[in-house]
Structure formats: structure tokens, C-alpha cells
């Protein structure tokens, strides 16, 4: 029982990170039907940016005089903004021209973009794991045999908070409505006066900024990262998005937590090696029995 509760806690924090990444996959797919395979690398970039910003503040000796919370806030905000910009640049430079091309072309471009980002990161910080500055004190609480760390709480709270903000944004603001309209029918959205280029860029910005948050919290959570980190995390988050119903924002959140839970329970009760297998087995099963995903609609988006 204790092991179960422990693995649920682990699964929730893992799931929170996957969910943050999955949102970007699903939002981009929802609006331009592109699986942005470079998105996992944007997530890794989020960790890199956070490390660089904290390092910068530290090196200049400012870290000791400045409250820790402020340093973290700056790192988080910086990571979000920089990742957002990377996402917008990807769309502008690589995907926009291919918007009306056969679907294979942008897909391959996305894989290429993924390689480019990975290699940039490798050039930047080398091929070895990079430690995340241990500036955040990790407090662990013990409840019988169950451990709960402050980092786990941080991941889950951050993920849930941002998902709530995103939901409110999408359903209750003018720009959120413009995004949903563009996703449902691009031409009709234009006829409403919606600037779809701006709306699509905004979607990339938000999705990438959320990956930036994912990179920041995962850096704190795991304590290190490396340039290739986004490959597997990206695949799992993509699986989460498909599991929830690709294009569906609430589905990506649910999918993220389900994947995290499956992974951590398999690791706890079967073995570590089977965790990833279980995740992709779940993907296969979903694709066979419920291709539209848990929350996906059976009817296609387009009329």
C-alpha cells in the first residue's frame, strides 16, 4: 500500500511534466494539424535556459543578495519567454511556408528542426549531463513509509495552476476564442477578421512557453538534464496528447497524468525497464480501440 501511494505521488509529478509538454503538442496539432516533433527539444531548451539564467545570476554574485524566490521567478519567466520565442521562430521559419503543403513535408521538417535544436544544445553545453544548480532546498516530508518532497509538490501545483490558467484563457478570452475558431475552420476564422498568422504564432508561443515551464520544473525535479533529454520525454508527452485525444487541451492534461501514472506504477510494481514499454503499449492499445483518444471527439474537427 505504501509503495502504491509512493508511486502515485511519483506518477503525479512525472505526469505534471508530461502534461505541460503534451499541451504544446496538442495545441499546435489542434490549430495546424502538425505534429511538432521539435517540441520535446523546446522542453529541453527550457531546462538549458533555466540553468543558464540561474548561472548568470549566480556568477554575477547577485544570487546571494537576492531572494531565492525572485531568482527562480526570473529563471522561470526567462525560460518561458525564450522557449516561446524559439517556438514562434520555428513556426515562422520552418512551418509557415509549408502550411498548405502535403502533410508529410512539415512533419519531416519538424523532425529536422528537432535535430537542429538538439545539435545546437550539444554545441552549447556538450554531450554530457548538465547539473541543475541546486539552489532550491528540497524538503522531504515522511508519512509512515511514504515520502513527499517539496519538489514534487512544486511540479504538480505548477502544472495544475498553468492548466487552469490555460483553460480560462482559451474559453474566456477574445484571443482564446480566436484560437479555437482558427483550429475549427481557418477560412471561416479569417472571414471573422481573425489574423490567423498571429493566432497560430500565439499558439506556438503559449505551447512552447509551457514546455519552458516543463523544462524549468523538470530541471529542479531531476536535478540534471542533457541535450537529448527531450527525445524520450517528447515522445511520451506526444503519447499523452494522443491518449487524451490530440487537439484536445483537457485531454492532453489528462493524458499526461495517465502516462505518468502508468510509467511510475509499472516501474514500482513490475520493473523500471518495463515502464517505457508500458507507456507505448498503452499508446498502441489506445490507437487500436479508441483512435480518437479518451476525450477526443469521434467526429472529425472539420466539417
Amino acid at each position, binding site marked *: 500500500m505504501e509503495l502504491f501511494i509512493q508511486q502515485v505521488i511519483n506518477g503525479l509529478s512525472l505526469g505534471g511534466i508530461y502534461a505541460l509538454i503534451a499541451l504544446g503538442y496538442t495545441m499546435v496539432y489542434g490549430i495546424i494539424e502538425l505534429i511538432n516533433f521539435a517540441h520535446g527539444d523546446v522542453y529541453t531548451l527550457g531546462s538549458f535556459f533555466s540553468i543558464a539564467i540561474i548561472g548568470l545570476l549566480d556568477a554575477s554574485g547577485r544570487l546571494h543578495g537576492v531572494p531565492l524566490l525572485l531568482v527562480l521567478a526570473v529563471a522561470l519567466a526567462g525560460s518561458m519567454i525564450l522557449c516561446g520565442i524559439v517556438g514562434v521562430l520555428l513556426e515562422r521559419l520552418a512551418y509557415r511556408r509549408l502550411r498548405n503543403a502535403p502533410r508529410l513535408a512539415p512533419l519531416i521538417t519538424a523532425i529536422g528542426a528537432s535535430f537542429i535544436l538538439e545539435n545546437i544544445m550539444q554545441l552549447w553545453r556538450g554531450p554530457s549531463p548538465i547539473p541543475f544548480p541546486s539552489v532550491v532546498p528540497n524538503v522531504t516530508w515522511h508519512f509512515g513509509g511514504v515520502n513527499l518532497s517539496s519538489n514534487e509538490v512544486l511540479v504538480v501545483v505548477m502544472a495544475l495552476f498553468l492548466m487552469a490558467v490555460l483553460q480560462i484563457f482559451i474559453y474566456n478570452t477574445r484571443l482564446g476564442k480566436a484560437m479555437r475558431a482558427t483550429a*475549427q*475552420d481557418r*477560412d*471561416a476564422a*479569417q472571414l*471573422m477578421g481573425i489574423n490567423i498568422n498571429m493566432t497560430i504564432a500565439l499558439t506556438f508561443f503559449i505551447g512552447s512557453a509551457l514546455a519552458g515551464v516543463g523544462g524549468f520544473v523538470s530541471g529542479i525535479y531531476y536535478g540534471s538534464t542533457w541535450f537529448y533529454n527531450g527525445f524520450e520525454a517528447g515522445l511520451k508527452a506526444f503519447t499523452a496528447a494522443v491518449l487524451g485525444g490530440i487537439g484536445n487541451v483537457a485531454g492532453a492534461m489528462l493524458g499526461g497524468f495517465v502516462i505518468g501514472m502508468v510509467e511510475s506504477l509499472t516501474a514500482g510494481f513490475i520493473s523500471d525497464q518495463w515502464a517505457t514499454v508500458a507507456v507505448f503499449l498503452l499508446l498502441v492499445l489506445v490507437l487500436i480501440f479508441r483512435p480518437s483518444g479518451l476525450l477526443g471527439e469521434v467526429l472529425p*474537427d472539420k*466539417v
Partner: protein
Amino acid sequence: MATLLELRQIDAFYGRIQALHGISLRVDKGEVVALIGSNGAGKTTTLRVISGLLRPAHGQVIYEGQDITRLSPDLIVGRRLIQSPEGRRIFARMTVLENLQLGAYTRTSLTEVAESLEEVFTLFPRLKERINQKGGTLSGGEQQMLAIGRALMSKPELLLLDEPSLGLSPLLVQTIFSIIRDINKRGVTILLIEQNARQALQIAHRGYVLETGNITMQDTAANLLASEEVRAAYLGGSVKAS
């Protein structure tokens, strides 16, 4: 009457297929102009060019005296040149209210938008009953009302209507056409595309006939209704069959 919209020698292509061959037409302020023609004649293409969804290879679109040929669709909408597209194209997974709000996307005054909403509800009381229903769950006729209502939410100067009667029962067709006439009386200029040529010409002031991407006839609506060629090609027998 002042010219509101003018197309000059428009050539448009889909890939290598030429859909429009040197189309020229004119819509004056306050008019209802009908563009009739059979399937595939280029009617929808003409509207796509006007709205900026399809960039013509040659020619100009002049609106309120200014060349808008190269403007993006959202900027054209900003000039209150509004299209209600073929097939209604309402946002199926959004509510009636959200659809109408999107129609007012470019407008800034909330009080004016609220006034427009009231006007639309006066014109289409049915939409008010369905205000929180998802667009996709409406009947065909209700969807058409929503599409027109949504276009009106932008307070159009010129309204382009693409096949508003398509797929509607004869009774509803009458209703929709009388509402179009009503909208025009409130000062909105209308360019109307219809396969239902008789109905269209009955409410129009002038009309153009489009055949395989060429304008083959243009005249007052009354003359076109009386014309032998038009009667033979587009009006069928005395009873309308659509």
C-alpha cells in the same frame, strides 16, 4: 449611386486551372446585386478573391475607392466587407453566442456589439432560444440564420452571401430571402450568389451571369428575369426546382 465595390479584369487560378477569366463587375452603394450561374462557374471563387482568401493572378479589387487586392482577409473584414461563406461554415463546437461574438471580432465598442446582438435576435428570434446550444447541433435553417447573423455582427457595409438558400426547405428559403431584403433596407449593400436564380433576381436590383469563369450577361434584375437565355439556362420551368 456611388460605386462601393469594383472588380477589374480578375484572373484567378487554382493551381494551374484557371477559374476566373478577366471578371469585371461593380456593386453600388445600397444595391442588391445577384451573381448567378451553375455549379463550378466561379461564383464562390469570385467571393474568395473579394475577401482576400484567394489572391488573383491579375486584376484589381477596388473597395470604397481603394485597392484592396493585396490585403489579408482580416484587414478586409476590418473595412466592413463581410462574407457569409458557402456551406455556412459556422463554428460547430462553439455555442450560438460564441459564434455571434466571433462575428464581432473586429469591433471594439462593447455597447455597439450588444446593440448588434439585439438586432440579430430581433431578426432571428430562434437564435436567441438556442443561445447556449453548440452550433453543430442546430438544424440547417438555424445554421444559415446563425451564419447570416454572425456576418451582421460585424456591422457590414457590404455583405457577400454565398448560397444562403442552399439545402433549405422552400418555406425557409422564402424567410431567408425576405430577411435579406430586410437587411438591405437597413442600409447594407449585398452581393448575393445563388443557384436559385429566380429568387435571387426577384430581390436583386441588378445581376451578372457567370459561365465557366466568364461574365456572359449583365443587366437589371428585371431584364434578366425576362431574358430568354436566362430563363432557359437558369430558371427552368415556371416552378422553381433547386
